[in-house]
């Protein structure tokens, strides 16, 4: 009886192993025939190519592994920016779609239908080349507030030059820990004595005062470096100093967030509409004001519907960021599965590493969102 149950599973396992074994054996034989060696040793070799935009120090004298990290961090950067903006736009548009105001509701609906029905790659090209055509050359750029310069060669913004940056960061961490304690204390106080504490005000105060103290007492100071125009030749200019966001990053982040936001907006709408009308009426009947109804009754229930499909959208956005190669944003696919693959010719090794990396990224996002989902799920008592 038991054996009968296990047999199909055992057979499936054997078949899977055989198929996998066949393919790896086949690859091995073919590679041997063509004199291709297999190994990850190349990762420590000098890469000898440069990358235009990197969060860590990198140039061609570093290793291929370092180039991999550059690509990975750039992928994470554009994904995080994309996720943050997609969430903000998505929530706003999702709620706007439920608005009683006809104009707002229609605008939101048109936005959603328009952006989610055009292939993402086209949108990326559109934003990139539209941006390139529309943006001024560096010498013709009008400064925004005198210090920001949006040009075809990138968005040049002032940079902070820090002294004792670590102390400043510690003060921020300390402030966050303090806020957590205040919240726990406030909750207890409310449960025991029924007195509400203004947690938000205290939190903001802590976030301002502690870092301020680090400036006054900890010897932290920051000077601001403003980008200055520089002439490269008779007709070509660029900016020096400050921080530069390449136009590739801006247009990719823009395209990704506008596209993904449409799906998130639909998740939000579904979530809010999924809470039954009776809940709101019941909440109102026990004397909660509309804000409290939304915060204490509707949102907690809506979030349970919103979170799982939104997780999918976060995963999609992260994976879609690999379209970056089309517009020269140096993400993991362009730097590692592109240039590094070409220069070393190690297709199997590099593609396997890249696949594993995306898998790890996606699983990390999944685990975090599942944890959050569990946290807000109904706790049966």
């Amino acid at each position, binding site marked *: 009886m038991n054996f009968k149950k296990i047999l199909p599973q055992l057979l499936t396992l054997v078949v899977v192993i055989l198929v996998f074994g066949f393919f790896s054996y086949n690859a091995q034989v073919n590679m041997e025939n063509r*004199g291709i060696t297999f190994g990850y040793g190349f990762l420590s070799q000098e890469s000898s190519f*440069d990358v235009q935009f990197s969060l860590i120090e990198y140039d061609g004298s570093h290793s291929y592994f370092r180039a991999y990290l550059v690509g990975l961090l750039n992928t994470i950067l554009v994904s995080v920016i994309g996720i943050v903006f997609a969430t903000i736009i998505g929530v706003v548009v999702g709620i706007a779609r439920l608005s009683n105001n006809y104009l707002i509701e229609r605008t939101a609906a048109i936005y959603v239908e328009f952006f989610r029905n055009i292939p993402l790659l086209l949108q990326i090209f559109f934003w990139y080349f539209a941006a*390139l055509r529309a943006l001024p050359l560096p010498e013709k750029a009008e400064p925004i507030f005198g210090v920001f310069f949006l040009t075809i060669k990138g968005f040049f913004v002032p940079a902070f030059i820090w002294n004792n940056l670590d102390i400043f960061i510690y003060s921020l961490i300390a402030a966050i820990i303090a806020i957590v304690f205040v919240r726990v204390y406030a909750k207890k106080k409310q449960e025991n004595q029924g007195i509400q504490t203004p947690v938000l005000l205290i939190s903001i105060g802590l976030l301002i005062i502690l870092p301020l103290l680090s400036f006054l007492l900890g010897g932290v100071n920051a000077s601001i470096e403003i980008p200055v125009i520089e002439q490269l030749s008779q*007709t070509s200019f660029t900016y020096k100093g400050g921080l530069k966001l390449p136009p590739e990053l801006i247009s990719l982040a823009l395209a990704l967030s506008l596209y993904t936001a449409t799906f998130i907006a639909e998740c939000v709408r579904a979530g809010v509409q999924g809470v039954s009308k009776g809940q709101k009426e019941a909440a109102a009947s026990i004397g909660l004001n509309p804000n409290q109804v939304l915060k204490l009754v509707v949102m907690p229930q809506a979030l349970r519907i919103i979170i799982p499909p939104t997780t999918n959208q976060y995963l999609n956005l992260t994976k879609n960021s690999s379209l970056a190669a089309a*517009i020269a944003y140096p993400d993991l696919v362009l730097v590692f599965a592109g*240039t590094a693959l070409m220069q070393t*010719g190690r*297709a199997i090794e590099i593609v396997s590493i890249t696949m594993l990396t995306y898998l790890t990224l996606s699983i990390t996002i999944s685990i975090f969102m599942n944890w959050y989902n569990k946290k807000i799920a109904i706790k049966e008592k």
Partner: protein
Amino acid sequence: MFKLVKRLTSVVAMFAVLFTFTTETMAAKKSKTLKNTQKKGFVRCGVSQGLPGFSNADAAGNWTGVDVDVCRAVAAAVLGDSSKVKFTPLSAKERFTALTSNEIDILSRNTTWTLSRDADIGLTFVGVNFYDGQGFMVRKNSGISSVNDFKAGVSACTNLGTTTELNMRDFFNSKGIKYEPVTFEKADEVVAAYDAGRCDTYTTDKSGLAAQRIKLSNPDDHMVLPETISKEPLGPVVRQGDSVWEDIVRWSLNTMIEAEEYGVTSANADMMKTSDNPAVKRLVGAEGELGAALGLDNEWSLRIIKQVGNYGESYKRNIADTGILPDRGPNELWTKGGILYVPPAR
């Protein structure tokens, strides 16, 4: 009785071994790629996604270019018809994988011959059909007239996955200039980005620059700087491990170049059969048994010259007459001051 059966089987077995041995050597001679090509009835050729003069498709899907002609020559030699080629457009990134994974049998896609490509990743370069070098294109009004005029902060647009990326770093490093590399997967995007002003310079092989300049909105506003910063011998590539096929591709290319050297053209090839020069007669298959050495018939080289033409004809048709590079430069025959020099066909 048993003894007889035993003896009989051993004899049969011996014959069987002998037979398989002989058929195997014949098969080896014929080469797997050659056999597959003849069975399919077309040559599978990997080309660029559109580089005028080298490999470019017109609106009707007809491919032309000097790289395309190499594949056509092989088709003429192997299948007897230069039109029996299936072209696969490939990006720089895809090209080697397509070849090693058996998607194509010849890669003729302005590919630079380097040691690591030849030795490390299962490829074999069979020759050079264009001697090139990396250069820079700039706007004429920029006042930059030499590579020495570049300043730190210069942004350079180029293609992903090419030797260009490496040469560019070597070059700017040796000058001590900090630069911004902007690398795209497809050439069309590089051109569009440079055209829009994203980059101060566009760098790739000089032939590529000359060809892509035509695609800019105002080609006359741009110029290619005189300096050449690298050696880029471009040539067809085959998979490692099929030496017969490798020889066929190599000698198809060599035939075109040698035909020019001896003045054999598509127009006069048939008449050359009665030439007094034995080298010319060998070239058109009127003397010697050169085809058999490659596993082909003896008219293979004649078909190449008649259907595709010699190298000079191909260059004129594709590169000179289209205004890309009217001056042949190093791609002139060694007898006329260039460096085109191929081993003799004999």
